[in-house]
């Protein structure tokens, strides 16, 4: 499409406006994490010029960043010390995403390629498992987890997050596999390949984009999930969303610390998405079949 210079400027301005609109809350959240407590709620809000302080980060991560000489640093292990919690979050999000993706990819491929009686109902049934509100499942899950000794364990939380992600992942991946012509599988089968070889060598590389997209969704779900971590863990581990809520206390809310943790929590998710996004390209099946 050819645009006149005026139109081009207008388009750039509009694009920047939209980006700003979405980026501003994040920016403001970051500024809160480096503001002095008394300036967080000052009216009018201080958006660009304010006194900075690393205090919130120092407390949350139990380290001295040395920006503010003479400031007392809370000792590690204090109430505000959150480094292990960030680590918990990363382990759980990565492992549950990996587990969900491995199982869902295999299931989706089978559902996309194999025909069996009642297949349509089966797909619907998978989806229906996500129709019940999680709250309704949380309490029964607590008892099941207690009896199986899964309470307060990494694998317990990883399992429930993977389970929650599975239905959507299966459906999403199935649609990606459906887009890959089944003649490719058939040609390879005639050529002498086994089903698994077809899957591993031909179909999987073509589905990489879909798998990456699905992985991002699973990761973000696990990264932000609150309810199940709250009910199924006690002291052994806690993820960032749950510990964030502990900054809200009866004597006040530690806004600066909460913002510091939140800011730090954006990073791993951001890095994960950055890593998989190079796979988020369409058109991997280009050239296989005539259009």
């Amino acid at each position, binding site marked *: 499409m050819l645009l006149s210079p005026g139109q081009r400027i207008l388009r750039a301005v509009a694009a920047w406006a939209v980006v700003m609109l979405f980026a501003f809350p994040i920016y403001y959240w970051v500024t809160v994490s480096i503001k002095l407590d008394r300036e967080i709620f000052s009216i009018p809000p201080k958006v660009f010029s304010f006194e900075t302080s690393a205090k919130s980060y120092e407390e949350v991560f139990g380290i001295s960043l040395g920006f503010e000489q003479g400031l007392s640093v809370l000792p590690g292990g204090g109430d505000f010390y959150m480094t292990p919690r960030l680590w918990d979050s990363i382990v759980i999000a990565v492992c549950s995403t990996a587990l969900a993706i491995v199982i869902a990819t295999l299931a989706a491929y089978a559902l996309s390629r194999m025909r069996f009686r009642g297949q349509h109902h089966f797909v619907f049934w998978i989806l229906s498992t996500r129709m019940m509100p999680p709250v309704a499942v949380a309490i029964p899950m607590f008892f099941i987890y207690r009896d199986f000794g899964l309470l307060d364990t990494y694998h317990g939380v990883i399992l429930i997050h993977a389970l929650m992600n599975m239905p959507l992942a299966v459906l999403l991946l199935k649609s990606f596999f459906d887009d890959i012509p089944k003649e490719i599988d058939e040609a390879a089968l*005639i050529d002498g*390949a086994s089903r698994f070889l077809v899957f591993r060598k031909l179909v999987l590389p073509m589905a990489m984009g879909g798998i990456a997209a699905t992985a991002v969704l699973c990761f973000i779900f696990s990264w932000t999930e609150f309810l199940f971590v709250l009910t199924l863990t006690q002291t052994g581990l806690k993820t960032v969303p749950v510990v964030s809520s502990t900054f809200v206390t009866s004597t006040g809310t530690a806004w600066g610390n909460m913002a510091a943790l939140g800011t730090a929590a954006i990073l791993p998710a951001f890095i994960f998405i950055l890593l998989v996004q190079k796979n988020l390209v369409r058109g991997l099946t280009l050239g296989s079949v005539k259009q």
Partner: protein
Amino acid sequence: MASVEYENVGKSFGPVRVMENISFTIADHRFVVLLGPSGCGKTTLLRMTAGLESIAEGEIRIGGERMNQVHPRDRDIAMVFQNYALYPTLKVYDNIAFSLQVRKHSKVEIRKQVEWAAELLNLSPYLDRYPKELSGGQRQRVAMGRALVRHPQVFLFDEPLSNLDAKLRGQMRYEIRRLHDRLQTTTIYVTHDQIEAMTMADDIVVMRDGNIEQIGTPEEIYDRPANCFVADFIGSPSINFLRGEVRGDGGVPAFQSGSVALPLPANNAAAPGQAVICGIRPVDVSVAAEGDVRAEVVLVESTGAESHVLLSVDGQELRAVVQGRYRAKPGEVCALKINPAALHLFDATNEQRIG
């Protein structure tokens, strides 16, 4: 190499019946074309032969062995798909080599085979490319190469040329046929293009709605079509049909349709008074200064070398092919000569050939 036999093969997709009682035999080394309009079951029959569709009714034998329960990889067939179904993440070399790699042939042997096929198909410069970097014709040849290196008992081709432009199609037609003459591998070739069928086939199997309408060599099918459908499907421009009846008066049997009267061979099998459809190929109609039939010109189309003239005879349409240029205005009246030896008579009720 092997023969392929079909015996009472039928097929349903759920409640939909798509094939009925297919029985025929393809002898060793033959190049057989399955010809029929879209949706008549050609692909389905080919897929059943390849083992991609179950054979619930009847039996398919390759080289005398029953194939119903045999896995596709053990049937020793190679198939070229209607869409080529190349492996997009593999280079051309690996696309062609895939079946040999899977079957654990030695590297040296694989290289030899791939280079042989690439040479044969003029693909040598492209072995390092990905399928998306090839033109349609090159992709088609990669699909062929993938089949060739297998040296299978039977080749199955599903409309491999349908997506190429007319010129390339003509060239590939010739090359595929030449390849067959060299390799002598039994080939089943599916198409809905009657020109491909006529030019390439040893035998043509004409299908309609999951039934076989006629089996024969191209000459047999063209010269003695078994029914109106086959007559209409083969030949371009397509055959003219005139409805009328057989007159026996005066000892000389004749076909009568309105003012058109055409003498029939004395030994024809039609009974006097029988309602018939008379098929006349456009090349057997010539426009002359004077002739048996008067007609009005409706339209003239020139293809360069010849002209196709659409005529109206007593309200029935008739096409004629005239060599060279034919200049006439719509509405002009002319006379026609029809070669009486080239008439095809079909029964008007069941459309089957008479005699």
